């Protein structure tokens, strides 16, 4: 990496924006500031950046609309939102359309930097299930939401992908024939402890889920589950500091 990663920071609060920009520069980012979505869009016409970090509530165009417009115009730049309002429907919309993460204000700059670096790296979600149809279905649902996804039909293949590609979230079935989900999670995290693991199971196995949780699984699902829940958890995991 020869140049510093660049961030377009969009927030209408001048004080907040400038102090956050100063901190991000301190952390080694190049920061461009915009005080509203229109300015940001105009700037993006002629310029490029590695990440857009935007407030949600702003006069005029909101951060969520900014994100949706970027997606519509096929700008693949990752977007991270920040909001002081935890219960906004808008935020849910953004998550279901694949925004990388939503940072709750006020946030720790250290934790935020972790999330921003992740977002810039452009990681994928790895879906693992020995049932191929089920794996493909989950993967295409996540892809449709705009996430980058990889699929594996077994633990060996999954481990291989986790080692060779940038994966930050693994969503795995608990029960698999050769190596089960727990063992897979253990091996993936041995390789990269920052990976968030989520497990799901077809039927209720309290001990297995309990063990998964105690070994640090970020979330557990019971099939069938709505893809929105998964998207929600993924965005949340990505917004969080290291486990």
């Amino acid at each position: 990496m020869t140049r510093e990663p660049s961030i377009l920071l969009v927030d209408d609060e001048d004080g907040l924006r400038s102090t956050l920009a100063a901190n991000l520069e301190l952390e080694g980012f190049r920061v461009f500031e915009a005080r509203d979505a229109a300015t940001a869009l105009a700037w993006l016409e002629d310029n490029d950046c590695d990440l857009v970090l935007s407030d949600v509530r702003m006069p005029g165009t909101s951060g969520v609309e900014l994100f949706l417009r970027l997606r519509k115009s096929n700008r693949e730049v990752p977007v991270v939102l920040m909001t002081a309002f935890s219960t906004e429907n808008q935020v849910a919309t953004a998550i279901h359309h694949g925004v990388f993460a939503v940072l709750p204000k006020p946030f720790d700059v250290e934790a935020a930097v972790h999330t921003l670096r992740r977002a810039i790296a452009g990681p994928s979600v790895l879906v693992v299930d020995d049932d191929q149809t089920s794996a493909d279905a989950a993967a295409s649902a996540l892809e449709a939401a705009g996430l980058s996804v990889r699929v594996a039909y077994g633990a060996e293949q999954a481990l291989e992908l986790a080692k060779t590609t940038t994966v930050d979230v693994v969503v795995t079935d608990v029960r698999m024939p050769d190596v089960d989900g727990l063992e897979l999670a253990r091996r993936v995290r041995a390789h990269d402890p920052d990976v968030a693991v989520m497990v799901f199971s077809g039927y209720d196995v309290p001990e297995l889920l309990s063990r998964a949780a105690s070994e640090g699984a970020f979330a557990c699902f019971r099939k069938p589950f709505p893809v929105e829940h998964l998207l929600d958890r993924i965005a949340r995991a990505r917004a969080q500091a290291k486990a």
Partner: protein
Amino acid sequence: MNERTGVDSSLEGRANELFETRSRESAAKVDRLFVFIMLGTWLLAVLCALVISPYTWEGKVRSTHTHVYAAIFLGGAISSLPVYLGLRRPGDVMTRLVICIGQVLWSALLIHLTGGRIETHFHVFGSLGLIAFYRDVRCLIAATVVVAADHFLRGIFWPESVYGIAQPEWWRFLEHAGWVVFIDVFLALNILRSRNELREMCFAQLQVKEIAERVGRIEKLAAVGQLAASVGHELRNPLATIRNAHRYLRKRISGSEPVVPDAKMLEFFDIMEREMNASSRIISDLLDFSRPKEPVRAPCPIPALVDEVIGVVPSRGNVRLVNAVPRTLPVPDVDKDQLRQVLVNLVQNASEAIPETRTGEVTVRAKASERGGIAIEVVDDGEGIPESVAAKVFEPLFSTKTKGTGLGLAIVRDVIERHGGRIDLRTSPGVGSTFTLTIPVSPGVSI
């Protein structure tokens, strides 16, 4: 449920109290009315005696007729005690009994003075009607007994003074008593009905008052909540700005050369950070309370969650935190973040309930409860909670701590109720407290 019956029975108790007070007040009013009636009757009797038969002739000597003396002295004797009690002890049961007896004694005297005229007997019925004003069946009974005794005894020894003739039929007494009992029955029925009505009115009045108070409280809370929400939101941005500025300055100063100009600066940076964190927590509490979130449910294994919670709660050297949740516990569908917050709150409270001067233990245990739920218990062997406090711990804005918003347990209860569960507290002073969360495993199940 227990709580509700508790409130109800106390409402009933207070309604009874109010009913007693009202009854006494109304009896006291009737007492005053009778004071006037007694004095008026006496005056009237004396006047009548003077006008109708002021003098009598005994041979050639004119003298004041005994009727006049009877009116003055007997009437005075009958009226004086009731009047005295009516003025000095209005509302007492004894007062109204004495007054009622006095009133029918007046009937007896008037009947005697008029030589047993049938028309004067009507005074008895009028008196019973007046006595019914007391809405006390005992008064009717006392009056009736006196009337009956008077008729019976005078019927035997002095029949013309009560029946107007010297040789009445033997059953005359029964006929009179029969009519008195006849009217008594209807008066008594009326009294019972009006007492019931008064009792119901008292109950309804208290209920209305209680509801009005509750509505007032809820409105106040809603107003506080709205204010809290807007203040919380407005404070978030400035706080974030201060936090960012603080972090930048701190980084620059600690990295600067020569080393920090003043040792106090770093210390103050720490203090600022601590206080900003405290402010953030208060804001979060306010927002959680005023804008409760619907739970986002997913299977959440409890044993691991409790491990997490125990890791987050600030440790105190004298308190041991124990996770005794079995791994085989059914996995409930809950909002993990919300339940974590609930447990952190409860475990932290429990830990703080143990005095610094001794060691103690906080245990989190759980079991499957009947009807498809789980029960999680947070148990401490701390000081316990006094009864007066225990009744209020879940009320918002109630706190015994000097620091804090008093919203912690209100939020806890709200979260649990949104999960379709409930929270109970058992506590005994000096022994410790147990908070029990009962949560359905899946949202559809009711417990």
